[in-house]
């Protein structure tokens, strides 16, 4: 199994403010799958993504990635894990507004200690793929929604991650642009990248080949 979640529990807060966001959640994902997660607001989708992205440690349970227990890693190890294996695409694009497209896309490569020459080569290549080479020195404020999301995708893919985590990637886009992004994700998946995507949109959810439905911190349906 590419990654597994065993009896994952995530509890936020203390005493009266306690929120049990994930309850005994178990999940297995094969390599190359396109997983879509659906559910109402507050069902724990984003928390699940946080756990998969090694941003939040579960209160209880085991998260294994390619057989390795992520819970045993310390902060530096987790950072390296994210940098090497994961890519993130978010609803609000998560771009650094005070930096250029080039700087945004090359950000993960800086943490990888990639040399400047190699950085330029890889950023150039991925922006070409995304048809954004002519925007390389622009700032996010100068781009359309679709272009911003493609920059975010480029950044997510520049390190050739094994797992791409997408949180409502079409949430801030119009339908046409949303479809364009989904098509790109499909292509990326077909090239071998495992994708886990959270979405409210049933149509976009069908792009996946492994559909999960969540409610109150649990998986209630898996197909």
């Amino acid at each position, binding site marked *: 199994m590419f990654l597994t979640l065993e009896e994952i529990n995530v509890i936020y807060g203390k005493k009266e403010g306690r929120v049990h966001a994930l309850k005994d959640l178990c999940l297995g994902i094969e390599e190359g799958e396109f997983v879509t997660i659906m559910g109402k607001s507050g069902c724990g989708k*984003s928390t699940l*993504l946080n756990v998969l992205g090694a*941003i939040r440690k579960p209160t209880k349970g085991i998260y294994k990635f390619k057989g390795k227990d992520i819970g045993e890693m310390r902060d530096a190890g987790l950072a390296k894990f994210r940098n090497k294996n994961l890519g*993130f695409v978010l*609803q609000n694009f998560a771009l650094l507004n005070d930096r250029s497209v080039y700087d945004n896309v090359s950000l*993960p490569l800086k*943490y990888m200690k990639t040399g400047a020459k190699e950085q330029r080569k890889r950023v150039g290549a991925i922006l070409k793929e995304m048809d954004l080479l002519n925007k390389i020195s622009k700032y996010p404020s100068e781009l359309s929604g679709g272009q911003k999301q493609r920059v975010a995708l480029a*950044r997510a893919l520049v390190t050739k991650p094994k797992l791409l985590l997408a949180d409502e990637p079409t949430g801030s886009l119009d339908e046409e642009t949303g479809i364009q992004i989904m098509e790109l994700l499909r292509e990326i998946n077909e090239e071998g990248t495992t994708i886990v995507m*959270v979405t409210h949109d049933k149509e976009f959810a069908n792009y996946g080949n492994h559909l999960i439905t969540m409610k109150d911190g649990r998986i209630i349906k898996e197909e």
Partner: protein
Amino acid sequence: MKMIHWEHIIEIGLKNAVMFSMLLILITINFSLTGNIAKKNEESQKVENNYKSTYGETTFYWMTEALKDQEYYNYMEGDSNGSSYKKMTDLLNELWNEKSFQFYTCNNQTLILKGKMKDIFLEGYEDGDFSDAVKTENGKDISMVKSVQVSSGFFDCNNIQINSGRAFSKEDYLYTEGKTIPVIMGKAYKDYYKIGDILDANFIMEDMKMEVVGFLEDKSFFLSYFENDFVSLERYILIPAWNFSDKSEFSKMATLTQLNGNIKANQGYEELSEQINNIVKKYNSKWQMNIEDPNSDSGTNVVKKYQKMTSQVSNQFNILVILIMIFIVISLVINIFSILEKYKYNFSVELLCGAGFWDIYKESMGFTISLILLGNLGSTLYLFINDSGKNSIILVDILSIVIVAIMAVASYIHIKRMNLGDIIGGEE
């Protein structure tokens, strides 16, 4: 261990150029202020220590000659064989040389100089009444200026220092008719006179030439009988007290007036009075000296008053330095935190891209350290140019280290508590 991403730090600075510049100015000004106040504090401490070492726990008394009219007449007019004058001279010398207490001549006298002197030097200037201090004599202006006739003990007992030129030598305390009298001038005179200048003077009704041999240090004070207070010497001329080689009307008068002065003693008033009168009566049983007790009801213990004041000033500077340092630390911490909070979104994105806690921590600390370092450099340069002394610079360095240390701990806690994962599903 990952290296510090200086480009991110520089970028934070450039993108927040206005805030960064304002913080930098704030830090530089505050550090410079701290250094300056530290310098004042140091000077104040020096004054206090100087004061304590000069005046310590001893008491100062005033002594003035108190010859009755008849004795005065007998001394000045009726002393045909000069024996009275000799006794007076011997008495004066015994008092100067006495070991169980320190007597020194400190005799405020008007000195008449030919020519019109600047107003600030004239008698009565400080009281606002110096209209009579300049007169015309034989068609020429003469000015009455402030002077103090002093014996050698005056300098030691009041810790008076010479700024330029020389102090009075042993020979200067010997008077020979026609000899040029060396004088030392207060600092204010330095703008108008130089070493070697000759003055046409009249002192206790005797014409004489005076030569400027030195100038006093700034902030030279003496305990004045007439003012009952410490008085600055900057507008005074110091004249040496004399032993005379010849007897004359002038020498008799001068010798008598030289008995006016201060006594520095550990003895109490009663004991001192008795001791002095016993000495005096050895020479003439009818002679008397007036000893004034500064601790009496009619008097004010000026020395004790100033001791308390310098100590209070010193303490106030200490408090001011501490308050300023606390203010600097608090204001900087608040301002830097506000920038960190502003960058929470960026830190979250960096986290997603593979940054660890320590990368983000180093970035925030790099920004803080850059700010403090630049502020430190700026203020050090200012303090160096201002000749504030190494202690001020060291204090600013210590302050910088303290701020960085506080920020190191506070930033660690603050960033640890930041919920960076909120970037995913933040709206949810």
